[in-house]
């Protein structure tokens, strides 16, 4: 088996004295899509923040493509091929669509290539390219965010709660795009509260509660236990 693209070992992290990650172990094999599920406050988003360099860990290790990354800044990681689409609308609302796309070129691809990729996947964005991103609908904003995932040609893609605040049909469209990205061979770690939606596109799944990974397995196995995890078990 080849070296996994992401390996997290016994990771701890805290906000002040409040420990949020209490020993997380997680592996994303090269080329695989892993869904990270679980209730709110379980530590999913915090884990993504630590992996992407936005937050410091207190102990443990993170290996990206077999290389130990520690204390690397988010912009360094981004230029090394880690693309993170954070929770919420991860676009710059007061820049036009095209200006948002221009900034993607910081990841090391030419601006023209970014425009080509983004507009061919989402023709709607081309129609609105001079419009301010903040005036787009939620779904269109998320498309713009996904354009970065598509065109920055990442080694590893981290997606956090793509579905937040979006109508189900839009969410499904977005996940179709995630599926397309996965088919092109990109490794993806996707955090999602809508378990069923995320499980459709993933190869493996892990469940986090209380700052730890409490279950891992094939999508079907995990799907069976999710209703209990989220809505509570026996009365």
């Amino acid at each position, binding site marked *: 088996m080849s070296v996994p693209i992401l390996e997290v070992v016994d990771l701890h992290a805290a906000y002040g004295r409040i420990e949020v990650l209490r020993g997380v172990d997680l592996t994303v094999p090269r080329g695989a899509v892993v869904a990270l599920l679980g209730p709110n406050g379980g530590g999913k988003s915090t884990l993504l923040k630590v992996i992407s360099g936005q937050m410091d860990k207190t102990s443990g290790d993170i290996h990206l493509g077999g290389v130990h990354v520690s204390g690397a800044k988010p912009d360094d990681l981004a230029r090394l091929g880690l693309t993170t689409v954070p929770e919420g609308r991860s676009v710059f609302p007061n820049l036009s669509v095209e200006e948002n796309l221009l900034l993607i070129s910081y990841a090391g691809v030419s601006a023209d290539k970014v425009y080509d990729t983004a507009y061919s996947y989402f023709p709607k964005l081309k129609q609105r390219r001079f419009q301010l991103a903040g005036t787009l609908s939620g779904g269109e904003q998320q498309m713009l965010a996904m354009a970065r995932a598509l065109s920055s040609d990442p080694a590893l893609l981290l997606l956090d709660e793509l579905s937040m*605040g979006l109508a189900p049909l839009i969410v499904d469209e977005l996940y179709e795009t995630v599926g397309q990205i996965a088919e092109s061979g990109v490794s993806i770690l996707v955090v999602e509260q809508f378990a069923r939606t995320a499980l459709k596109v993933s190869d493996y799944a892990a469940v986090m509660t209380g700052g730890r990974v409490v279950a891992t397995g094939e999508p079907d196995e995990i799907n069976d236990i999710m209703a209990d995890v989220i809505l509570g078990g026996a009365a």
Partner: protein
Amino acid sequence: MPLLHVDDVVVRFGGVTAVNQASFEVESGTITGLIGPNGAGKTTCFNVITGLQAPTSGRVLLDGKNITRMPVPRRARHGMGRTFQRLEAFGSLTVEDNVRVALDVHEGLRGMMRPDDEATFQRIDELLDRVGILGYAEERADSVPTGTARLLEVARALACNPRLLLLDEPSSGLDEAETDAFGNLLLELAAEGRTILMVEHDMDLVMRVCHEIHVLDFGSIIATGTPEEIRNSPVVQKAYLGYSEDETAELPVTEEVAR
């Protein structure tokens, strides 16, 4: 008559609608749960009820009285207390002084003038003991664990003797035993005649203590019922877990929320 009536409340932030014509009631003396997926607008609802956020439209009635435009501090004097999802303890004060501030304020000028008598300390200790954090009384509030800080916010709110207590994710940061004890406390408070509205993600706790549950999704109430009804509601399951492929086709095409 319900103690709290949220009537057709809409909150827009720029182009995003956080709360979309939400209407629900909280009956006096009950524990009511307000649940829903992330970003459904629960905390925004709380902010509207307590006055920290002005609604774009709609009304909030407390005991039949329209309080939509009432300033925040006056709502407290009308018997409303709350805790926060993101902790808002007074970090530079000790745990005990956090409660003391609330007692002083609650008693108005008398509280300002009152010497530090034994009765005050007793009252503070009682409140801290009640939520189970008496052992932390003399520590600074910014140095206690998150669960303790949440319980402190509950004690602080109780110091003002509220009729209506709004709890925003009170159990996060508590372990299982603490959550159990907290559930018992909630039931006691309700038995005393206090009304509790609670946003909570621990479904075991919600199902155990709530008399009624409202489910918020995309800023609107999509279901209301007893814990049993809510657990078995397909609408709620969909809201929480998303949709499988075959189901999607049958869904009505809803307008997107964030327009």
